[in-house]
């Protein structure tokens, strides 16, 4: 975990209506440590406003160039301030944070299910799975419209992409579950996106006896485990009772069977 003032290499709007921005940062120390599925805390201003940093999933890691990429959607004060920064300016970054996706060497066939801005954190996973030589990588991406499906071209290099949009402007019309076939045979299902989507992906995987990892999102205070603000409801391994785990520290990636999905 490193706190640094990173130079912004790129900060541009990549989607007009869906308000997605792409930011590339020079942060060699963080890039060196970063793994797929981890995140960073960023703030556009150094002082009181916005007071808290914002968690952003890492979208691409370039260890050689010492750079990292995030894709963020304009939502509130924090992301708005970020969107005003120009290339050449600096931004305070804490990272890499969290546990990241668990990738095993013996994985042969996997399925990635992503929706909305959650798609971003699946890209470095797809890249790593491909580098490891995983034979079959199915990638199901969903969103409101074609504008909401990010990084599609990069995903297409590494796997078999299937697209679902609510308005039918790209791929098939509907939600990601139209691609959930019977008797799937995967070593792992990885999912990141809106809670209802992850719940469906988890139910599909678990009901067929498949393993599933989900990457959760929650409002965060610190990002490094001290504020206890970003907890999610999980099942305690021993007692089966509810216990709250920190998304920033024990997560953001959890085994789907231990998570209670609440909207």
């Amino acid at each position, binding site marked *: 975990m490193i706190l640094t003032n990173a130079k912004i290499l790129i900060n541009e709007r990549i989607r007009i209506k869906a308000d997605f921005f792409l930011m590339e940062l020079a942060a060699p120390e963080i890039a060196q440590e970063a793994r797929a599925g981890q995140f960073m805390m960023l703030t556009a201003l150094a002082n009181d406003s916005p*007071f808290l940093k914002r968690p952003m999933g890492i979208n691409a890691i370039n260890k050689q160039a010492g750079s990292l990429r995030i894709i963020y959607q304009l939502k509130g004060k924090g992301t708005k301030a970020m969107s005003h920064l120009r290339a050449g300016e600096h931004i305070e970054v804490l990272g890499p944070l969290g546990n990241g996706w668990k990738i095993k060497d013996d994985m042969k066939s996997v399925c990635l299910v992503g929706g909305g801005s959650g798609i971003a954190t699946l890209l470095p996973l797809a890249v790593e799975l491909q580098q490891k030589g995983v034979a079959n990588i199915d990638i199901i991406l969903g969103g409101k419209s074609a504008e909401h499906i990010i990084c599609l071209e990069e995903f297409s290099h590494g796997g078999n992409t299937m697209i679902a949009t609510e308005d039918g402007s790209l791929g098939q019309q509907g939600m990601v579950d139209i691609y959930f076939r019977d008797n799937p045979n995967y070593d792992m299902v990885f999912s990141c996106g809106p809670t209802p989507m992850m719940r469906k992906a988890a139910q599909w995987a678990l009901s067929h006896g498949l393993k599933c990892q989900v990457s959760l999102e929650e409002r965060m205070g*610190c990002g490094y485990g*001290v504020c206890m603000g*970003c907890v999610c409801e999980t099942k305690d391994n021993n007692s089966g009772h509810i216990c709250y785990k920190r998304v920033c520290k024990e997560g953001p990636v959890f085994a789907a069977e231990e998570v209670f999905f609440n909207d």
Partner: protein
Amino acid sequence: MTRMITNIGGISMKNPLITASGTCGYGREMAELFDLSILGGISVKGTTLEPRLGNKPPRIAETPSGMLNSVGLQNPGIEMVIKKELPFLSQFDTAVILNIAGHSIEEYGLIAERLDEVPNLAAVEINISCPNVKAGGMAFGVDPQVAAQVVSLVKSKTKLPVIAKLTPNVTDITEIAKACEAAGADILALINTVLSMVIDIETRKPLLANGFGGLSGPAIKPLAVRMVWQTAQAVSIPVIGMGGITTAEDAIEFLLAGASAFQIGSANFHNPYAAPQILAGLEQWCEKHGVKDIQELVGAAQ
């Protein structure tokens, strides 16, 4: 560095900076970033008799120059804290302060009587000011008589110095402060968070699952400075000031208002290196202003 030495109410510290309860866990995460021995003290997460699940998420909301939290004292309970958490902190040369909270007055006593057996504890901080739990917490801190009962019970159960941490959610904080002093408190710490609320205008519901939360951060600093000023003049025991400190200059303002030491709270969230940076800033400021002993500043504002 000797000019930073702070000895108050039976606690010896190398400097007046303490990380505030609920903003540094039990020290493990922060210890990955810097040596905790640089801290004057560390006030660890509010601990209860039994384990506490805490409140439902969302527990955090950003507000202008600050934040709301409604964590609700999630902690593994005193037994686990003594067994698993406090031993970790014994490797550091810093004053370890255990913050405790109870559902009932008796519970504060039941926790306190366990503490004399714990090696390396510098003090106990009684949380009678948490706004995020239904029973206990703030309920005990808004009534001078009840606050005094908790303080004198804890005092009778442990030899450790007793800090009473006060809530700002009262009409006159000096009334509670005087009651705690009379009941035997060695030190007062103030302020805890300010009871607040944020409504999501799209869902038309409170943003926090708990409804209300505690406001902290720079937004509450002037309120905290005023209360520290009033309290320091009303009592003769030392006061630890806190509320929105993010820089060395903020800390000096609290000292001038009458605080003998200060705590860093939500600044730890937006900047994990807030404590070392504030300490360095404090040294520089004293050097520049010819301050030979940090205690010269305490209550020096006229």
